[in-house]
């Protein structure tokens, strides 16, 4: 349990951002990065729920080798909707738009993002994109898989175009957000904050913004071309009219491999904040984490070919892409070692965010190392397009990104709402997430080894018992996430008051009240010291921040 924190001056006379203005319109038309973050929060949680329901339907169908609850075409639409919803409506926006939006300006000591109106626009563009996509789903959905592989996507009778347009619009929202973060980091850092004192979460969001800015336009163009190919038979990717389907895969993975880092880098940023706070220690190497963030962002652009080892690319290409993929793994490994080394001789408080770090540590390390395994060419020939790959990327995306998202949801909950959740339920549900997750996806590794291809509606009966285990795990995982969300919702109203800094963190966002006032800081702070310096007391840190 959290020790009763030192309660420095909470300023009751200044209303916090939740109470600064009243009425629906004050939310819908807000320029406050914190309120926009909360609106995104509601959005991404809704789509996490929707994507989760799709996943449960899929797992239920796979209980038996043949038809269980739906026919083949419904199943194919369902896995497409699951992928599209989870990737573009939850994972990619999740940590950046919610926690990045909320925390980044405060960690920089700024009043807001550089372009508050652009920030609001980014939210509404997200809503429009989501509505277009939902419209496409209701109008019948599409059955191409989230990868939209040509020429199937040029030929399918289902509604590819609205879904693709939805993703295109969501890309615009992503680009708005990325521009905002980059400009803010460059121009709105508090006095005294050099790049060497940037909080590690800001490094992560900065790195991910660069990827978003460079990769998203390529995705947008590629999907637009798919739409044209589907609608006008333009013949870009469809060989029946002179196109090249492998070209589509190159263009698609040029975005979608970096997109994996769009999902995982912010997660690493969250972990890099949680670990020092709860160990009350400086990260064992600040620069190792910061530089490896940028390293991943850079090298991530040169590894897309490892998705295509059996697609018909040349042996030379395959060799080069395989080798480059190994370097990404090195950067991730450096981060993992640095986090673990930070625990060494720390002063550890074992709260829910820390348990999520522990969950993340195992799942991300195991998932990451299986990533190196599938990048090994001869092994990939057996594994690609089987459940092994499905298990691998769920370890990274659910095990890594979702665990970090939940860690952030707990870690910054007092900051965002000024209250404490029940630690007991938090620890319990985190354990449930860990068990449910492993029960869902470890059998899928074995199914992949046995040779069960992905996207299989019906399967040979020898695969059944492992599929049933996996389905059971999925229900457990869903229940644990539901308990987590309920725990936080209850704390919203009935939680204990947290005080400004319940975790005794030295990070800059905790210098101000919780929940923070509308303009974050009473006076612009002076942040000329490290956000991870636990050799000084909390009071001393506050005094430094207020020094002129």
């Amino acid at each position, binding site marked *: 349990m959290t020790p009763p924190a030192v309660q420095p001056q909470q300023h009751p006379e200044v209303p916090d951002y939740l109470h600064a203005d009243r009425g629906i319109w004050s939310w819908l038309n807000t320029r406050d990065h914190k309120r926009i973050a909360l609106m995104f929060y509601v959005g991404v949680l809704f789509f996490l729920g929707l994507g989760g329901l799709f996943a449960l339907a899929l797992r239920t169908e796979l209980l038996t080798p043949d038809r269980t609850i739906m026919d083949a075409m419904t199943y194919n639409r369902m896995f497409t909707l699951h992928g599209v919803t989870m990737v573009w409506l939850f994972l990619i926006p999740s940590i950046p738009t919610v926690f990045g939006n909320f925390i980044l300006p405060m960690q920089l000591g700024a009043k807001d993002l550089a372009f508050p109106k652009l920030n609001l626009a980014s939210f509404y563009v997200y809503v429009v994109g989501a509505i277009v996509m939902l419209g496409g789903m209701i109008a019948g959905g599409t059955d191409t898989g989230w990868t939209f*592989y040509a020429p199937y996507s040029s030929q399918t009778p289902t509604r590819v175009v609205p879904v693709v347009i939805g993703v295109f619009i969501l890309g615009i929202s992503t680009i708005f957000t990325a521009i905002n973060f980059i400009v803010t980091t460059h121009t709105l850092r508090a006095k005294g904050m050099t790049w060497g004192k940037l909080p590690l979460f800001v490094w992560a969001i900065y790195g991910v913004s660069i990827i978003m800015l460079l990769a998203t336009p390529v995705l947008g163009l590629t999907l637009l071309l798919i739409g044209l190919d589907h609608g006008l038979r333009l013949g870009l990717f469809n060989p029946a009219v002179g196109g090249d389907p492998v070209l589509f895969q190159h263009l698609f993975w040029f975005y979608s491999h970096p997109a994996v880092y769009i999902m995982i880098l912010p997660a690493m940023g969250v972990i890099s904040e949680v670990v020092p706070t709860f160990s*009350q220690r400086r990260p*064992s190497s600040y620069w190792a984490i910061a530089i490896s963030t940028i390293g991943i962002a850079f090298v991530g652009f040169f590894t897309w070919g490892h998705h295509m080892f059996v697609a018909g690319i040349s042996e030379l290409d395959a060799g080069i892409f395989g080798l480059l993929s190994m370097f990404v793994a*090195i950067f991730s*490994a*450096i981060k993992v070692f640095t986090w673990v080394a930070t625990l060494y001789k720390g002063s550890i408080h074992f709260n829910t965010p820390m348990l999520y770090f522990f969950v993340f540590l195992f799942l991300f390390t195991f998932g990451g190392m299986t990533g190196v395994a599938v*990048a090994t060419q*001869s*092994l990939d020939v057996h594994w690609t*397009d089987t459940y092994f790959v499905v298990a691998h990327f769920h370890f990274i995306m659910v095990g890594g990104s979702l665990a970090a998202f939940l860690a952030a949801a707990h870690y910054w909950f007092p900051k965002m709402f000024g209250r404490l959740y029940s630690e007991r339920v938090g620890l319990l549900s985190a354990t449930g997430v860990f068990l449910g997750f492993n029960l869902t996806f470890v059998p899928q590794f074995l199914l992949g080894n046995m040779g069960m291809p992905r996207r299989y509606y019906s399967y040979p009966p020898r695969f059944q018992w492992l599929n049933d285990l996996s389905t059971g795990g999925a229900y457990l995982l869903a229940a644990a996430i539901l308990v987590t969300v309920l725990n936080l919702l209850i704390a919203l109203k009935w939680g204990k008051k947290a005080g400004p800094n319940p975790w005794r963190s030295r990070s800059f966002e905790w210098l101000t009240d919780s929940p923070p006032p509308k303009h974050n800081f009473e006076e612009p702070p002076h942040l000329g010291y490290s956000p991870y310096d636990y050799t000084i007391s909390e009071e001393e840190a506050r005094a430094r921040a207020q020094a002129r």
Partner: protein
Amino acid sequence: MNDFLRTILFLPPQASTIAWQIDTLHYFVILTTMGGATFITIVGGIFLIKYRRPGKNAEPTRQDPAVKTPVWLEASVVTFLLTLFCVWWGVGFSQYMKIRIAPKNTYDIYVTAKQWMWKFSYPDGSHTITKLYVPARKPVKLIMTARDVIHSFYVPDFRLKQDVVPGRYTTLWFEVKEPGTHQILCAEYCGTGHSQMRGEVIALEPEDFARWLAGGQPNAHLAGPRPQDPSNVDAFAPDQTLSMVRVGEEAAATDGCLRCHTLDGSPHIGPTWAGLYGQKVTLKDGSTVIADDAYLTESMMDPLVKIVRGFEPVMPSYHGILRPGETAAILELIKSIRDVPIGQAPGPLHRQPYPPVGAPPAAEKGLPPPGIEVMPPVQGTIEVKP
């Protein structure tokens, strides 16, 4: 050791010559992966417990300066990992080159993939659908292309997979160690019937294979039993006349019609055939058409022209797949069940919408079962193509 690891990792049998090499690397990589992840987790867990500060003793600040990780430790860990990964890459890449570069003396078979079936063409001009016959202990090269969308030829027992791409040719070679049967799966999502696009590699002793191939030469294209279904030499000519309905059922089962259409009136991906013949059918645009021979034939050859209301335009064309005799036989089959009522008929087809590839269709009473059971590993019987 090999068998033990293969079993606990759930890997299928090693049926091709390259399989055990790949598996050896597999064991090394997976054991290192599991070991590494477990090690990191345990170290992290020990730190979490050992350096845990109980709540009430918590100090607001700790005065001891941060412990620095020594540079030599960081450098050696990174160097070790990079070396390890490069070894994986080196071995993996050299195996990949072996997989990709076929030896000179291969026996070549042409493969055409289409929604949702595999067609194999042998150098002597004969074809099989779904079942690929190869000689054991000889390198075989598949030269593959697709007619519609991307498919992927995957044989888990061989540890081999290759995408089959429309508009270009890809190749895959392998050498099967022993005679036997191995499942083919389509591994690249290709539409509604993706998970049913399965087949079999049947490896024969080289001399059996030669005999099977030789038997395939004469009069293979006369109406009669399916050319790809091996039967015994003695049964080369069927000893009793098969009815057109019977031939139609066989053709419908082996060519995949019954994966989408049912014979008992239950609904599925495509309209049921029961009670269809002679009926008025409502199309997507609201017009109607009588289901006569002309309409049914057109729907087989150019299925997207007239879409029945309530169904998706997913059916592939059978032009060039069905032989003229088979088209007529399927029409006869549809005519023969014109009195079966349309509706939810309980039956085996309802529970299991897709009969497995090569399974005997609902047999006409009194006729011998068609000789298309899954072939056991060959034990001296000579398999001949009629």
